[in-house]
């Protein structure tokens, strides 16, 4: 033994890195490949660290809202966590809309914001804002990191919290001096988390048995599924299909849940809710057992609450205990992951000799009666492009293609949900809970980053598209061939529709005046501009859009005063839907429909 004994080999010790390097290393170690961001003073050290990291691809957006929506599109279409990197102050506040959007729609995001140095916090420094204060109610969780020693743990925990349980956005606010400070880096598998957070994944077996017994005795069951099935991964969609096949029950879904159950399946009723399928809403109203899986009884789904599915027992399966009985009292609540609970229910169903799926023939006969009403019917035109027709042609011309669809918010979004058939989960990205105009284009960019060889179409309106039009520049920079199909009716169509139906046709500030020339606009950005304003030219224009290997802005001039039907008007029940029958007085339709079919 000598006094000069060598110290232990350094490779067993945690490496000492700067805060900025820890952040970048943590991103890599959590499987991140792509992040969306915008540099600024308070994140320059992180951008410096990114400069040396070839494993991370950074997409430079044109506005921080675009970064959050792009990350949402990336996350929603890939099942991975979307990552956003923005600076302090305006960088953070611009990101807030997308963060709330992700919270409402349960999209896993990790948002890294720069902050002024710790010594300046609270001094109204340049580009300072109380980011954690502003985003506390906008996030699933947020943290201001005051010491570099805490960074690796906070970063790894952020990914875990964002992706597990009910997914959501987690924001990590990092002062600039913490990005420069040095600390030991800990890997995700060795770090000790400080929170007791442990979401429950497996449903209570007793409740599951009870639920299955209830469904087995039902004469008019319905499966009402939501975004939770998609968040639970592709296995959950498989389990849903299997359980539906075994039980023979009809399936409807929320806007967020489209694609979990194939639109081509005979058991598919179409979307539920305010602009949902006539048959779906009537089946929801008249069912005797409702099985809600990963949905949350949103007011756009339920319509008038005290008249919502009055005769049914409700089974509610959700990973978020606060969702159960929040709006509608559940007779049986099951807390757990949608996929695991559906698999357990399938096993419980199989364990006994149940009635065959064909036992529901009377229920299906009723449903067929509602289907015969053809609730999505619209008046065709040979002079004007009907927006519904445009979407039907898009569906026809993309059939069999590897297609992902995003939307903006409004009438076009509802028509897209009605007329585009989704066969697989993760193919449909839309802003459901928050209803954020401007979501679709940046979301499409995120989707295209996750699926470089797939076809990505943003179904847009002329008003929504202008809210994040600047991201066309991003698409051009990264050669992302996203297709923006603008159903241009020169109105904020959904606002106009409500003003027509509910505000005495007083069209207050809903006309899209002074529209840009979208073809020239596309060309100015370096993208392809297309236009069609006659039904005869529609197919060629859609085909040209699809055939292009560049980003395309397609100005599809549609009929101006088209309304989105069917529609559950305010304060009405599911069986009080308005239909869009051509030439028939709306009031007469609702009465006769109500009397004849309910």
């Amino acid at each position, binding site marked *: 033994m000598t006094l000069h004994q060598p110290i232990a080999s350094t490779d067993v010790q945690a490496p000492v890195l700067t805060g900025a390097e820890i952040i970048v290393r943590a991103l890599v170690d959590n499987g991140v490949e792509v992040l969306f961001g915008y540099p600024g003073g308070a994140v320059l050290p992180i951008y410096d660290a990114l400069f040396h990291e070839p494993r991370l691809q950074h997409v430079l957006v044109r506005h921080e809202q675009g970064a959050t929506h792009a990350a949402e599109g990336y996350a929603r279409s890939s099942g991975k966590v979307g990552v956003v990197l923005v600076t302090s102050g305006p960088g953070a506040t611009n990101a807030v809309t997308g963060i709330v959007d992700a919270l409402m729609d349960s999209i896993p995001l990790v948002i890294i914001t720069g902050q002024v140095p710790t010594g300046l916090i609270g001094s109204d420094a340049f580009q300072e804002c109380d980011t954690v204060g502003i985003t*506390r109610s906008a996030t699933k969780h947020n943290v201001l990191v005051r010491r570099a020693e805490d960074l690796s743990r906070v970063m790894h925990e952020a990914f875990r919290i964002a992706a597990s349980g009910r997914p959501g956005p987690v924001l990590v606010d990092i002062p600039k001096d913490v990005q420069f400070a040095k600390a030991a880096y800990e890997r995700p598998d060795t770090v000790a988390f*400080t929170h007791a957070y442990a979401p429950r994944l497996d449903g209570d077996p007793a409740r599951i048995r009870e639920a299955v017994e209830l469904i087995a005795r039902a004469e008019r069951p319905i499966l009402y599924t939501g975004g939770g099935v998609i968040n639970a991964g592709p296995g959950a969609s498989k389990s849903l299909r299997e359980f539906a096949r075994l039980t023979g029950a009809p399936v409807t879904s929320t806007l967020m849940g489209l694609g979990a159950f194939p639109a081509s399946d005979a058991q598919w009723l179409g979307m539920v809710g305010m602009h949902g399928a006539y048959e779906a809403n009537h089946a929801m109203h008249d069912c005797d057992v409702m099985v809600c899986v990963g949905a949350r009884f949103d007011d756009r789904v*339920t319509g*008038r*609450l005290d008249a919502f599915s009055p005769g049914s027992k409700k089974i509610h399966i959700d990973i978020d205990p606060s969702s159960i009985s929040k709006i509608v009292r559940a007779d049986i609540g099951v807390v757990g992951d949608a996929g695991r609970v559906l698999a357990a229910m399938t096993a419980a169903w199989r364990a006994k000799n149940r009635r065959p799926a064909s036992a529901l023939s009377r229920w299906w006969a009723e449903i067929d009666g509602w289907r015969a009403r053809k609730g999505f019917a619209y008046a065709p035109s040979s002079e004007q492009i009907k927006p519904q027709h445009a979407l039907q042609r898009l569906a026809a011309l993309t059939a069999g293609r590897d297609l992902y669809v995003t939307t903006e918010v409004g009438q076009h979004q509802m028509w897209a949900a009605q007329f585009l058939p989704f066969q697989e989960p993760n193919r449909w990205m839309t802003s459901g809970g928050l209803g954020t105009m401007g979501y679709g284009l940046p979301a499409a960019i995120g989707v295209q980053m996750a699926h470089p060889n797939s076809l990505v179409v943003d179904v847009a309106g002329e008003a929504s598209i202008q809210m994040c039009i600047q991201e066309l520049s991003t698409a051009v920079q990264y050669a992302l061939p996203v297709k923006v199909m603008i159903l241009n009716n020169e109105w904020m169509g959904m606002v106009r529709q409500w003003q027509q*139906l509910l505000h*005495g*046709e007083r069209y207050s500030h809903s006309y899209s005046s002074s529209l840009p020339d979208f073809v020239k606009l596309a060309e100015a950005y370096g993208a392809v501009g297309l236009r069609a304003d006659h039904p005869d030219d529609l197919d060629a224009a859609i085909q040209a859009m699809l055939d292009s290997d560049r980003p395309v802005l397609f100005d599809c001039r549609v009929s101006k005063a088209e309304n989105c039907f069917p529609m559950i008007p*305010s304060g009405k029940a599911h069986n009080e839907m308005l239909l869009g029958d051509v030439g028939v007085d709306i009031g007469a339709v609702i009465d006769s429909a109500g009397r004849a079919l309910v």
Partner: protein
Amino acid sequence: MPDALADTDPAPSAYDLSAAPEPEGRATFAAIVDNEPGVLHRVVGMFAARGYNIESLTVAETDHAARTSRITVVTRGAPHVLEQIRAQLEKIIQVRQVTDVGADAEGVERELALFKVRGQGADRVEALRVADIFRARVIDTTHESFIFELTGATAKIDKFETLMRPLGLVEVSRTGVLSIRRGPERG
């Protein structure tokens, strides 16, 4: 398009406004939370954002080693609202455990209150006598005033306040409810 709809619907709205009020109850929730910056804001913000009432709120670090604090919040609401408040509390990442102390037979609730009473003559004597019955302590006195310190359940403190009011009650300061469970076990 007919605007018959507008005529039949007196309050056009995108939302269902038909909800009827329900009878409310009171609950005392004790939440054990990770003691880190912002956690109180998150709890209080949740109440504010979702429109729940806070009747009283107490918070302090209670386990230095585990870095946990205890937040006791007294709230009102219909039964399903109280259930939802509890679920929303449990959803907060820093919240480790929530107990409905009010509904727990083993739950103990206490408040501490300070009362300033000003008066002379018979009122002053009566105030002292009532304080004695309630086992309140006199912690300050002048020729024309007392300050009483009283500990007890909310109802006892409310009762004391009612009795002191005609005797010259000037000011009240209350801690809000503290809570703990009887027996040797934690939580």
